[in-house]
């Protein structure tokens, strides 16, 4: 299980499991943009949480998914916080 998630990892998850247009990257300004403003609904966030749990071994409840996975940047930070907490 990886100990760290990058924006590239998140991009790959979005592309394969949730849906991301080919020419869109989640870097730069877009990393701070709310998923909601990019058109992702709660179903997308639940699926994202499910993928993150499976691939990184973190626990994310549905409520936490809707609360904490607001933007690509916050999602990456949140998962890395969880992973850092596990390591201690």
């Amino acid at each position, binding site marked *: 299980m990886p100990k760290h998630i990058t924006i590239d990892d998140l991009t790959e998850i979005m592309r*394969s*499991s*949730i*849906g991301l*247009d080919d020419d869109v990257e989640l870097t730069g300004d877009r990393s701070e943009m709310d998923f909601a403003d990019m058109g992702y609904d709660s179903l*997308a966030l639940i*699926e994202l949480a499910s993928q993150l749990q499976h691939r990184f071994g973190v626990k994310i409840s549905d409520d936490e998914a809707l609360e904490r996975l607001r933007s690509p940047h916050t999602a990456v930070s949140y998962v890395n916080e969880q992973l850092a907490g596990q390591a201690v």
Partner: protein
Amino acid sequence: MPPETDDVRPAETGKGQSVTMNASGVRNAVITGIGVVAPTGIGTDAHWQAVLRGKSGIGRITRFDPASYPVRLAGQVPGFVARDHVSGRLLPQMDVWTHMSIAAADAALADADVNPAARPEYDMAVVTASSSGGTEFGQQEMVRLYQEGPSRVGAYQSIAWFYAATTGQLAIRYGMRGPCGVVCNEQAGGLDSLGHARRLIRSGTGLVVAGGLDASLCPYGLTAQLTNGRISTVDDPDGAYVPFDASASGYLPGEGGAILIVEDEEALGDRIPYGRIAGYASGIDPAPGRGRPRALGRVIRGALADAGIAPRDVDVVFADAMGTPEDDRDEAAALAEVFGARGVPVTAPKTLTGRLYAGGGALDVATALLAMRHNVLPHTTATTQLAPGCEIDLVLGDPRQRRLHTAVVVVRGHGGFTAAVVLQRD
């Protein structure tokens, strides 16, 4: 116990008066756009050329290894690449049946020369037919369920499998917020969606995206279909599905169908429709063993009465063509009862595609409209020698040049669902 009815239900308004909208106050529902994704090809032109040339889309199933299945042949859409039609943003959220439906609906709206963004959103609706829903997507998630556990079932399973998924995705895609719906009654759905679209047009909706597709050629989908006992196990692409033939052995399944744009004739401006939904009726067979006749004859008469025409006014019938001896004889008898023995040319171009379930009636309507536009009566391939008891004028060998003004399309769905549509052009 429910009352035992096998009524034919013609349209509830404007019976026999639909031709004169102003006189009767009933709006005319016309078909302005066609989008085809079928074993005969992607796009209306590819489909029509395949029909004229008798180019079959039936072959060995390539989607999965069919070696261990009793049926190894099907009509598959050639060269369908979902990415060419659906953005990466939406691709993982949908079944291939919805991908194909999006491709067909985009083409149909372009064909109708309609820009949905320029029209009032509550003036447009989507009513598609589906008999299997997102089977392949569902199979993938079921495999995850039993191999990896419930937490691995994707969130999009909740929407992708559902019969209404395509209607919903199309409504979102085009911003159509009028009265949307889905019709789930197997082969009859493609025509019943048009019947319902006409109902909506008459009650004031300006445009309806109708028709339907199915794409259930995965192990789970095929296994479910096999239970009906009507699929041919003959392992010969030219001889397995030969409706009305002395060697008829059942049908072959197929994927795809057609999307049809239905509009209020008054609102067309300069645009020329393919034709008008002049008549429609639906019915259901009596329970097996009751000794009463099946619904088809009554349904055809109901549709003709609804259109205000006589059997002699019909130029061609697109048959249901089940391909099992008993069903073929029943259909031939119903046609003879309404039109007289060999009283009307009958054709079944679905021998090129297999039976497409919800897509079957929709694709037949598309083919009938193209036939009327080109004044060509498409032939039935595969069938060569009519079975005893099938006394019909089946168009065999080559297409016939013929002035076509009125076409009837009939369907029979699993479980007795039966429908007929009368199409007319000016």
